[in-house]
């Protein structure tokens, strides 16, 4: 595995890795998403970045986060007070896409940057645990996610951390690519329905916008990986 991931250009797997590492990671992420138990923490990860994006948007637009709730099935709930409702609603899926894209990009930039970013996400998770978590299940999920990031920080070989962060980025991005489609269930619930009632633009348009943003982010990462 180490030779497979090696950066040494003299080794064949390294060339293969350099050429196809994006697709290898993407394929690994798709496989992870299909695995029944392994996929659960990654669903929590996407759910957390979705909810924290709502919260950050609330803070940026002058509001504040009252509470963040995460559920075992990957669902989440962000309770905010004040701020611009349109931006807060829109930033859930768009923000998760941005997080996935950013994690992959920064991890690809440099090993040290990947490490620093991992520490920052760990601190964000700890802050969410302390300030916005209010129930046992949310605390547990946040603790598991913080534990995952702590393990990646503690990795002796920073190179693996870089790959892991890239994998996390792609997993978040894949979730934010497909999860908006779950809004089209005819129940008129969720962020799409909220935006539709605010703007009179149908819910499907918002779902398509989110899907396109995630697709563009994925394409951007592919372009970066090709270089």
């Amino acid at each position, binding site marked *: 595995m180490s030779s497979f991931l090696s950066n040494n250009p003299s080794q064949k797997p390294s060339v293969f890795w350099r050429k196809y590492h994006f697709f290898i990671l993407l394929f690994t992420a798709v496989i992870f998403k299909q695995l029944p138990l392994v996929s659960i923490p990654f669903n929590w990860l996407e759910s957390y970045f979705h*909810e924290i994006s*709502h919260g950050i948007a609330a803070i940026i637009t002058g509001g504040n986060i*009252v509470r963040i709730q995460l559920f075992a099935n990957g*669902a*989440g*709930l*962000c*309770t*905010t*007070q*004040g*701020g611009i*409702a349109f931006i*807060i*609603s829109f930033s*859930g899926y768009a923000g998760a896409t941005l997080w996935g894209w950013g994690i992959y990009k920064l991890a690809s930039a440099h090993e040290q940057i990947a490490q620093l970013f991992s520490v920052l996400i760990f601190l964000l998770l700890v802050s969410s645990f302390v300030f916005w978590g209010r129930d046992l299940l949310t605390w547990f999920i946040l603790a598991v996610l913080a534990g995952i990031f702590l393990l990646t920080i503690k990795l002796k070989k920073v190179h693996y951390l870089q790959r892991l962060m890239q994998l996390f980025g792609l997993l978040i991005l894949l979730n934010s690519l497909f999860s908006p489609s779950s809004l089209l269930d005819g129940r008129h*619930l*969720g*962020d799409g329905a*909220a935006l539709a009632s605010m703007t009179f633009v149908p819910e499907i348009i918002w779902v398509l916008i989110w899907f396109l943003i995630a697709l563009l982010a994925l394409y951007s990462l592919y372009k970066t990986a090709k270089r």
Partner: protein
Amino acid sequence: MHISSSFNAPVTSGINNKPIAPIKNSERTAEPVSQVEQATTKQTQPSIVIDEQAIALFKENEASQSTQAQPNKEKFSSASQDQPSLKNETAVASYQTVSNLAQRESVQQLLGVDLFA
């Protein structure tokens, strides 16, 4: 001797005469006694003087006693029904208003929040 003659004569005469006379006297004297009693009773009846001031004072005392006893009676009856007095109810209500202020504020804050799934 003199003594004995003198002793007999008056005794016999005395015995024969005395019991009739004093009884009669006593019967007669009984009449004046009853008359005296009647007279005394007649004299005591008019001697009861109705003091208007005393009656007024008594009535006043009675009235004040009844007013003092009435709240106690009310309190007792309300306590038996397990109901606090109006004064206590007002005090409890004002106390609860203060304690509900914080709760009301938190509910208002809750109503002003948005949920994003």
